[in-house]
């Protein structure tokens, strides 16, 4: 399940709902991303997230399908907020449930790694010097490259130079 929304979400309510999915669930891996007050040594007062409505939902949906194809998962949840957020606000939640913890962990990390390089979101930071667009980091592409590439037709083709095949384990 994926959700793109301006509003905040309740971590407890979301996870409890995922776990209510059935007693075959052995583990839930969750990652929650928050707005930090400092980024690359800049004091951040707020963050404005713009996205591409329509494509965002499609990409997140593809990521969920791709994760389900790679691991035996029961539930997948991706929630990504947009709009203006301040430090400590929740930005994103990704979660996966599985009978086995390795699948839940791997899927959760795969989702956040790929989300950062494929989901059409762009961040602006508000600092004392005004607003600046956040520039994509090489390390995020590296993080996604930990995983074997997402094939065209799987979660869609990729406009970047194709990443090296780098299975994680």
């Amino acid at each position, binding site marked *: 399940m994926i959700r793109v929304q301006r509003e905040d979400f309740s971590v407890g309510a979301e996870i409890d709902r995922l776990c209510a999915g059935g007693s075959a669930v052995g583990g839930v891996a969750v990652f929650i*991303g*928050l*707005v*930090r007050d400092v*980024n690359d040594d800049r004091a951040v007062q707020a963050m404005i*997230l*713009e*996205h*591409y409505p*329509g*494509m965002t939902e*499609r*990409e997140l949906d593809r990521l969920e399908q791709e994760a389900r194809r790679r691991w035996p998962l029961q539930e997948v949840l991706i929630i*990504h907020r947009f709009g203006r957020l301040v430090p400590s606000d929740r*930005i*994103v939640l990704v979660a996966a449930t599985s009978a086995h913890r390795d699948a839940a962990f791997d899927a959760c990390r795969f989702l*956040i790694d790929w*989300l*950062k*390089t*494929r*989901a*059409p*979101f*762009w*961040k*602006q930071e508000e600092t004392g010097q005004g607003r600046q*667009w*956040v*520039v*994509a980091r090489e390390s995020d592409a590296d993080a996604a490259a930990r995983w074997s590439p997402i094939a065209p037709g799987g979660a*869609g*083709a*990729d*406009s*970047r130079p194709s990443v090296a095949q780098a299975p994680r384990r």
Partner: protein
Amino acid sequence: MHILYFASLREKAGLASEEVAPPAEVADVDALVAWLRDRGGKPAEALADLRFVRVAVNQEHVSLRHPVRAGDEVAFFPPVTGGTNG
């Protein structure tokens, strides 16, 4: 053809979207970019350095060699920066 600009490219282009009708020989993203550049103006500036431009056709990430045709939705944007900063 429906063209969209996002984030810093939207600011550089000075517009969020526009309808264009390139000639039929503009058959892939590469040719479309060349055609948009030839028009000049702020959208041309937004597309000046393709190292910082990513493209989606009909809401799918594509390469510069991807075909385009009338009716397509073509979006230009910088590399994405969603998720956390961490």
